[in-house]
């Protein structure tokens, strides 16, 4: 039969046409501004800086070690160290960044900075509405625009965030225990006179 293949094809499109009115699988368009896809936990767009507590600049976890600046493939992170040190969550004095810029027009959201950061200071955000009118200034996010609280990070990546928080809490507890032990035992070493 000459036309059989064509007719089979027509029936297929007809089935799809009729199906699109009742079968959910046959109409998969999500009307973007009104309906939005459910957020995916592992999704990543551009990085942001995590800070503990409520005050942004004081609570920044970043210690300006510049590992992420070296490792970033498109070189879009720019850090200047600030000589003034501040104590971090364990009480150790750490450097903090005076300038921490990310040029999000260059950043390709690969997430390598997150993997190489030893202080869990930089994490991947999930906001994708980043368009601005200005080509240069607005796409250069500085420290204050990048900083976001830790519970925002917990809301975004639940599993990863909870593991990090657990690890940081028991490190803090160990540090406090060590500090308390050190505070409680200054007298005995003084007595034997520097017996190392």
């Amino acid at each position, binding site marked *: 039969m000459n036309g059989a293949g064509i007719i089979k094809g027509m029936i297929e499109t007809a089935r799809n046409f009729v199906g699109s009115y009742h079968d959910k699988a046959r109409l998969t368009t999500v009307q973007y501004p009104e309906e939005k896809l459910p957020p995916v936990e592992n999704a990543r767009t551009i990085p942001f800086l995590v800070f503990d507590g409520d005050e942004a600049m004081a609570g920044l976890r970043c210690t300006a070690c510049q590992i992420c600046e070296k490792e970033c493939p498109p070189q879009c992170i720019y850090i200047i160290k600030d000589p003034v040190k501040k104590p971090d969550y364990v009480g150790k004095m750490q450097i903090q960044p005076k300038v921490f810029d990310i040029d999000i*027009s260059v950043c390709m959201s690969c997430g390598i900075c997150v993997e190489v950061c030893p202080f869990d200071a930089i994490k991947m955000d999930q906001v994708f509405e980043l368009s601005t009118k200005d080509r240069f200034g607005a796409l*250069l996010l500085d420290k204050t625009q990048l900083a976001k609280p830790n519970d925002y990070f917990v809301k975004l990546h639940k599993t990863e965030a909870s593991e990090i928080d657990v690890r940081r809490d028991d490190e803090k507890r160990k540090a406090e225990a060590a500090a308390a032990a050190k505070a409680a035992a200054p007298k005995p070493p003084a007595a034997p006179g520097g017996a190392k």
Partner: protein
Amino acid sequence: MEALEQLKARVEAAVPGAQAEIVPNGSPANQPSLSLDCGHARTVAEFLRDDPDLRFDYASNVTGVDWPEKTIKEKIKVKKLVSGVEKEVEEVCERKTPAYLEAVYHLYSMARKHGPLILRLRTENRSDKVTLPSLTPVWRSCEFQEREIFDLYGIIFEGHTDLRRILMWPEFTDHPMRKDYVEPDDYEYEPTPHDDVLTRARQHYPGGTPA
């Protein structure tokens, strides 16, 4: 596929006058290669393709590599009179390695399904004598890859059917993949200039980068 040594012997037996030497490969992937002299390269290639039990009928990959001149500091034992006494002494001397451009061919056999045989063809030097015999008449798959090496490295393949630039535009003169290639200074303003971009930014905007 038998070991590279037997293969070298077979090649030298089959093609009189061909000098092939084995280039060792340090990485755990242990893929040593066979360096051929330019004169007999094409006859050796035809032999490798047509030999009944070798049958390397598929040139998978052709790569250009640039080995510029390097000075290596080597500690070599040298007998020297040191305060009148003959003594072995460690001495550091510079040795300049020969500079050349290289084309590396990875050959496979689709008929026999055996693994990579790696051929290396080296030019005399990096400046004027940069011609190599083209293997496109033997394997048609080298056509575009040799054109790319000509375009990015500057090795001239004589005997190639249609040697033109493949990736860069015809009027481009330099060869960008060479180690001593200097990028043109087409500087565009970048909001986060740091290290080399910063230096170029200062050259272009002595008064400080524009807002």
